[in-house]
């Protein structure tokens, strides 16, 4: 039973981070219809940037906030340099560019930070679990979870209640109509990339804080794909629920199935689940079904 609760809490908390990364993914898809396959690298960059700030003496939380700012700048730059010229081109071309971008970023990361695993030293949060009732929780997980939930709330509130957020949703819905009201699509795309970079970056920082930072954080970033697809690609609540589901699924399968299918069932399970799930709900949990008037 203890094992069960441990998987539950860990899953929940890692899921929170996945949700954060998934949100970035959903934002880009929602606004521009692009499936951003460089998301894993964005996560990785975030992790390294936070690490670098931390290494030069900035405390962790301010370092995360600085990562947010760097994320905005990098997001804008990426959009302006690589994707702006592709507006209006077939969506597949744009997706291929994100694949290219992912290789490029991976190379860049290797060039700047090398391939050794970096660890936050001294550890930011205590690894030793604290006990709450029957639950044992590492503060690392707990704080990461809290931080990601706070950021999720901020992003969702931004999206739902501010003019800019609404304009982004409007562009997602009907670009021409939004343009006719003076909402510039170019700005919206840039903003979407900036937010995606921010959320992925912070997610990466949190993940890196748990396991140390190396290229595998990027793979974790890609693990968010099933989360996003489960949630329904363009649904913000879907991304959050999907993220948490994947976190849980991963940890439970790691705990209970690893004995039967040794080696990596944890990594495969989310994708297998996604495939089966889509058979029954092709739009994901809350994906947009096309509203058609008859």
């Amino acid at each position: 039973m203890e094992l069960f609760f441990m998987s539950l809490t860990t899953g929940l908390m890692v899921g929170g981070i996945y949700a954060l990364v998934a949100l970035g993914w959903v934002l880009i898809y929602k606004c521009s219809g692009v499936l951003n396959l460089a998301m894993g690298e964005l996560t990785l960059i975030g992790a390294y940037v936070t690490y670098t700030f931390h290494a030069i003496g900035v405390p962790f939380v301010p370092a995360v906030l600085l990562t947010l700012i760097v994320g905005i700048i990098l997001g804008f730059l990426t959009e302006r340099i690589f994707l702006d010229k592709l507006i209006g081109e077939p969506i597949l071309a744009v997706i291929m560019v994100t694949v290219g971008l992912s290789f490029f970023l991976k190379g860049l990361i290797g060039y700047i930070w090398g391939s050794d695993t970096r660890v936050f030293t001294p550890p930011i949060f205590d690894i030793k679990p604290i006990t709450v009732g029957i639950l044992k929780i590492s503060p690392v997980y707990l704080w990461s979870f809290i931080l990601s939930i706070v950021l999720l709330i901020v992003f969702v509130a931004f999206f739902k209640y501010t003019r800019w957020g609404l304009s982004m949703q409007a562009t997602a819905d009907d670009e021409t109509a939004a343009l006719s009201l003076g909402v510039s699509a170019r700005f919206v795309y840039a903003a979407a990339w900036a937010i995606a970079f921010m959320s992925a970056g912070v997610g990466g920082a949190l993940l890196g804080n748990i396991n140390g930072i190396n290229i595998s954080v990027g793979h974790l970033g890609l693990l968010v794909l099933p989360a996003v697809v489960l949630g329904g690609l363009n649904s913000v609540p879907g991304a959050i629920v999907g993220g948490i589901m994947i976190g849980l699924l991963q940890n439970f399968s790691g705990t209970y199935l690893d004995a039967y299918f040794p080696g990596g069932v944890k990594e495969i399970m989310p994708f297998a689940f996604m495939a089966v799930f889509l058979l029954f709900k092709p739009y994901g949990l809350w994906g947009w079904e096309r509203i058609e008037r008859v």
Partner: protein
Amino acid sequence: MERSEAILKINNIEVKYHEVILVLKGVSIEVPRGGIVALLGANGAGKSTTLKAISGLLKTEDGEVTDGAIEYEGKRIHHEGAAKIAKAGIIQVIEGRRVFEHLTVEENLKVGAHLRKTGSVKEGLQAVYHYFPRLLEKRSETAGFVSGGEQQMTVVGRALMTEPKLVLLDEPSMGLAPMLIHEIFNIIMKLNKEEKISILLVEQNAKLALSVAPYAYVMETGRIVMDDTSEQLSQNEDIKDFYLGLGDRGGKKSFRDVKHYKRRKRWLS
């Protein structure tokens, strides 16, 4: 032709799509400040293209104003981007009720508030609900699911939220029940009078358009073929025959009697 000062002057513009397809071949239109001007014409005459040339949306479809000039409040705008033109106060209400389907009615309106300079969003919403009380009832419903008339109201209300100076209305009556058309046109006239919004109205329903706008232009295959006060136009034999369905021949007529082609030719010369 005596006019008050014009808010919009289109001077003999030519529009090409993809740099080869010539769609507008010299169109000149003037919209007086605070006035309503109608633009009539059959399908494919170039009415919507004219509106898109003004609002700058043409550029998203790889179209371009290659000759002539569009002046808005004395400034040339035909090379500006759509977002900038909208910011200057020209808002196009695109044909076909393009609501943001997945947002609620009120959220749709709020997107319009994005450009608002003076006054709060709340005041803007109040103004819209004052003109369209129906929208108040439907404010929290998903815009994709409200009725066609309500969608049209949402789209016009959304334009109103931007505090526009000139609204380009593209076929607001399309696909709506006659009762609703009346309601919407009454509101449009009220907006023109009370909010001092100038309107360039594109319509296929010529009778309706001529009753709302005091001055009208008639377009055919990319040219303006006639322009006059609505009174004069309603008396014009050709307009009566082609657009108002009031041929003086009366009774049954075959296609041969109409001599469509010959008469149109005469205008073009």
